[in-house]
């Protein structure tokens, strides 16, 4: 039992080692990366980061990603809230089938949808816009939101609703004023998951964008295929994509364990 802490420690080292290596690479010049092998940068340089912050084709990628991720979080959570309430409180014709059908969309491989999405959004003139990517990501984020929120809402006792209705609240008023504060942490966790899955997805985001809404992840793959790999800049870009995730984790750190269980412990 005394050695119990060893296992998580070893695991955390295993997790951090590749990330450290990326940080190490991002602080070296390209010449140093290719010529010498060292565990820390011999000539510390921030040039790689400067390239990203000064070149619009790089930093616009971060802005594009942020825009469609935020749009997606807003759409997913606001659509899912009333639906999750309906699933957790009422039974209606086809509710179970609808719930399973929603979940099947979370299971759908994005590769299946890449081409039809491309054609659909091209034909309605939304190709290469932020809203197209945000809507496409709703495919798997809305079912997930409904699922998580339903778990949290079922944990709120039904008496809360009944008391409010007896007190003469109308449903929308009750929902915003009384019910939403009750599941505030659930909403936070849901937003976190929507952010997470929209932020990490590449295939659909890349297929649906060309220039104006190109996400940072797609810009990075383009650099990989270009001649003369610039490892330093690539590593710096990678480090910068880790930052938003780390920030978001920091905000939800108190709910993270329960959140990952999707309110279903």
């Amino acid at each position, binding site marked *: 039992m005394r050695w*119990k802490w060893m*296992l*998580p420690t070893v*695991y*955390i080292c*295993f*997790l951090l080692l*590749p990330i450290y*290596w*990326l940080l190490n*690479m991002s602080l070296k010049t390209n010449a140093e990366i*290719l010529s010498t092998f060292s565990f820390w940068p011999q000539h510390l340089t921030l040039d790689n980061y400067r390239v990203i912050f000064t070149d619009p084709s790089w930093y616009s990628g971060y802005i594009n990603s942020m825009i469609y991720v935020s749009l997606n979080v807003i759409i997913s959570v606001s*659509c899912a809230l*009333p*639906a999750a309430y*309906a699933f957790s409180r*009422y*039974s*209606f014709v086809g*509710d179970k089938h609808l719930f399973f059908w*929603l979940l099947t969309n*979370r*299971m*759908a*491989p994005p*590769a*299946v*949808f890449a*081409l*039809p*999405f491309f054609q*659909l959004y091209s034909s309605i003139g939304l190709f290469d816009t932020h809203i197209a990517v945000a*809507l496409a990501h*709703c*495919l798997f984020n*809305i079912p997930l939101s409904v699922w998580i929120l339903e778990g949290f809402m079922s944990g709120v006792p039904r008496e809360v609703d009944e008391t409010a209705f007896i007190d003469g609240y109308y449903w929308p008023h009750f929902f915003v004023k009384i019910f939403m504060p009750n599941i505030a942490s659930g909403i936070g966790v849901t937003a976190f998951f929507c952010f*997470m899955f929209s932020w*990490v*997805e*590449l*295939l659909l985001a890349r297929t649906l964008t060309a220039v104006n809404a190109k996400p940072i992840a797609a810009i*990075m793959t383009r650099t*990989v295929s270009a001649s003369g790999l610039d*490892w330093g800049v*690539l590593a710096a870009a*990678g480090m910068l994509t*880790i930052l*938003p*995730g*780390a920030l978001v984790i*920091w905000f939800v*750190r108190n709910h*993270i*364990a*329960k959140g*990952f*269980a*999707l309110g*279903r*412990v």
Partner: protein
Amino acid sequence: MIEKQVNQKAWFMVLPVFLVVAFSAIIPLMTVVNYSVQDTFGNNQFFWVGMDWFRDLLHSERFHDAFFRQVSFSAIILCIEIPLGIVIALAMPRKGWGVPVCLITMALPLLIPWNVVGTIWQIFARVDIGLLGHTLAALGVDYNYTQDPVAAWITIIIMDIWHWTSLVVLLCYAGLCSIPDAYYQAAKIDGASRLSVFRYIQLPKMQRVLLIAILLRFMDSFMIYTEPFVITGGGPGNSTTFMSIDLVKMAIGQFDLGPAAAMSLIYFLVILLLCWVFFTVMSNIGEERSKGGA
């Protein structure tokens, strides 16, 4: 379980979700179905071929290979990540400063964009510049993931363990935290061994979250695309061409709409079927156990 109130007006609350998901699920899916039964000579001229694409595909070597690789990959991933996740969750601290440190560092890989995960491992495993590749080469191990299929597989599996085991850990940890202290005290009084505490208290309490973990890990490993695409591009040869990679190659690379659409449908149906089986089996086990325990 309290009976839910019957209220057909609840459909109005579900309507926005239904419309958005229907727009982004049913229309594309219908397009796929449409393509899967037709052939084209370009110029938007289509003609009916019926089930031909499905027949061709189900008899093609290429599809069998990709399917086999995909199933073995998911099986290996589940066999390693689930037990490993449980063991780490059991060893994690329950209070003190270690808790936030563990939770935050473990959640970190989950929020890295998938292609960046690929890039990280590419940089980490390369023989010339990577820590892992360089160390192995210095130890005299013949390791080169761009040429050796076995090395490529091992790299991708280790990468997936790095990327996703945390999800299992966090889920199990949440399950373990929900066990009241009284259970452990009772077990202590009864003189239960460490193993039987795990078998009769911790495992049943983790069952719900384990179900979610297995389901999510199975689904996501079965759809894996970005990470192997970045690291190996499906190579060397075709040794790491999983179903999604093959599908995207066919649909967007070669623009073979018919076969790609047929493959999409089979792929989707396989996932649905397996998930449904998983779900039913696991929830049946849960019901039986709760009946037996009561």
